[in-house]
């Protein structure tokens, strides 16, 4: 067990330090802030959207977020963050140094991936927190909004978890490319192209199999009030990421490090 955990812990400690002051870390925090801030402004100006009809204000506030966030914002954000995190190594020509250290190659590779999974959770967690903060502020400003009348926390948490897990599919694709390709055109180009393609192909009958659309479908479960965790997009996201990560790790252990 220590043969697995020791190198992972050592490498992870180093990865955390590498994030210090990076655009990747700031982006992870500022991306959600941007979206939550816009949400706040919309409902600050049009608070009636949350009051009229006597419906569930949580469903309106979060439903809007899940759509934009899961369909476009999160995949775009993660495409950029994955690129930035991998580029830290490319820019420092660090692979030759890192892989000459007495750590198994797979451990370095996996911790790099784990730090991205951590950032993915951080981005989603930050958005949840900021959304709750938005709800709280709106409720203070407009006590007429009936936030207190509905208990929706479990569904919100579950839906965020599902969006996060379903995103692992596209995250891993971007990771496997960004870590192997030094230039930015391929990873960023492929990410952006795929996200736009997933928007265009929404009516395609097999779009639910396209990794860049998993998060969107996972987010749809919120409106459908689906509480089960392992729905199709989540399972697909986990499956795609597991397979790709295994392939990536194998290639990485064999390749020559320039």
């Amino acid at each position, binding site marked *: 067990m220590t043969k697995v955990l*020791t190198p992972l812990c*050592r*490498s992870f*400690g*180093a990865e955390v*330090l*590498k994030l*210090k*002051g*990076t655009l990747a870390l700031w982006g992870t925090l500022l991306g959600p802030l941007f979206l939550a801030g816009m949400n706040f402004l919309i409902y600050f100006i049009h608070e009636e959207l949350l009051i009229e009809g006597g419906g569930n204000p949580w469903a309106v506030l979060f439903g809007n977020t899940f759509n934009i966030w899961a369909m476009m914002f999160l995949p775009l954000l993660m495409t950029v963050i994955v690129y930035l995190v991998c580029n*830290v190594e490319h*820019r*420092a*020509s*660090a*692979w*030759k*140094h*890192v*892989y*000459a*250290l*007495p*750590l*198994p190659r797979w451990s370095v590779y996996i911790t790099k991936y784990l730090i991205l999974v951590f950032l993915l959770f951080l981005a989603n967690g930050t958005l949840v927190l900021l959304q709750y903060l938005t709800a709280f502020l709106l409720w203070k400003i407009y006590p007429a909004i009936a936030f207190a009348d509905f208990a929706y926390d479990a569904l919100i948490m579950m839906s965020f978890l599902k969006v996060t897990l379903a995103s692992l599919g596209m995250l891993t694709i971007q990771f496997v490319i960004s870590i192997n390709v030094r230039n930015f055109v391929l990873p960023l180009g492929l990410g952006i192209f795929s996200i736009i393609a997933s928007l265009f192909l929404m009516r395609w009958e097999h779009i639910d199999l396209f990794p860049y659309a998993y998060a969107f479908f996972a987010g749809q479960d919120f409106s459908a009030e689906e509480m089960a965790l392992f729905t199709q997009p989540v399972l697909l996201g986990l499956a795609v990421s597991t397979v790709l990560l295994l392939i990536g790790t194998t290639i990485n252990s*064999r390749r*020559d*490090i320039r």
Partner: protein
Amino acid sequence: MSPNLIETNALDFRFGAHQVLTDLSIQVPTGAIYGFLGPNGAGKSTTIRALMGLYKTPRGSITLFGRDLRSEREAVLQRIGALVESPSLYEHLSGRDNLEITRRMRGLRKELVTEMLKVVGLERDAPRKAGTYSTGMRQRLGLAQALLAEPDLLVLDEPANGLDPQGMRELRELLLGLNRERGITIFISSHILSEIEKTATHVGIIDRGRLLFQGSLGELKDISLSSVRIETRDAAAVSAILGKEGFTARSLGGDALALTVKNRDEITGAIRVMIEHEQPVYEVNSSQKSLEDLFLNMTDMGGAA
């Protein structure tokens, strides 16, 4: 255990169709400072990458500390500190944080970071971002990364690149100190012989992926010795005496003669013969080709000159 700390046996390596290393067998004795010389593109960096397990060589074996690199990679790397080509620095982090990353990955004690910053003279600049460092400072930080684990073997790939004469001298003194005081074996590559002539105990010369020479610095100097000019009173008579004693000498006319030697000891021998025959020795000039010339000849770099 073998007295050699590094041993490679018939290494081959190619990039696609381009053969980079051919049948490369090097032996680095424990405790040596091994200068690995060759022109740019000779295969020095490729060899170093193979030694660090970064390149997988399809043929041949690499043994370090008597252990096979392939089967005991981590145990071997544990005892090596390396600077492969230019230092790998995270420019957005301070010099100290850069060392801290290597420390964490190796699981070393915390105090080593401060100690190594002191060894390379970067204590004052440690809080500054590595991106603001000069070439010399970057090089020293890279060296600190390599030294951090208190290795038994230090592998340095052209560490003098970009250093000014002062920096080169400091590097030389640092390396000599590490070798003498801590017994660290040092493998250092360079494309300029004079850079390592003053530090190296052993030399390997590589060109186009093949090893052309390997041996101690003394052996290299012997090769470079071809003839010695001796001034005496009667060159013709002395040449005859030396000839009878088995030396190859010829008079250059007047008071000078040229003695052809294979090694440095032959010079002593010839002078002893002259003194035994009561011939004066006014001056001995080794018309030794400089090591640099020899190196250039060996590697064909002198062809154009």
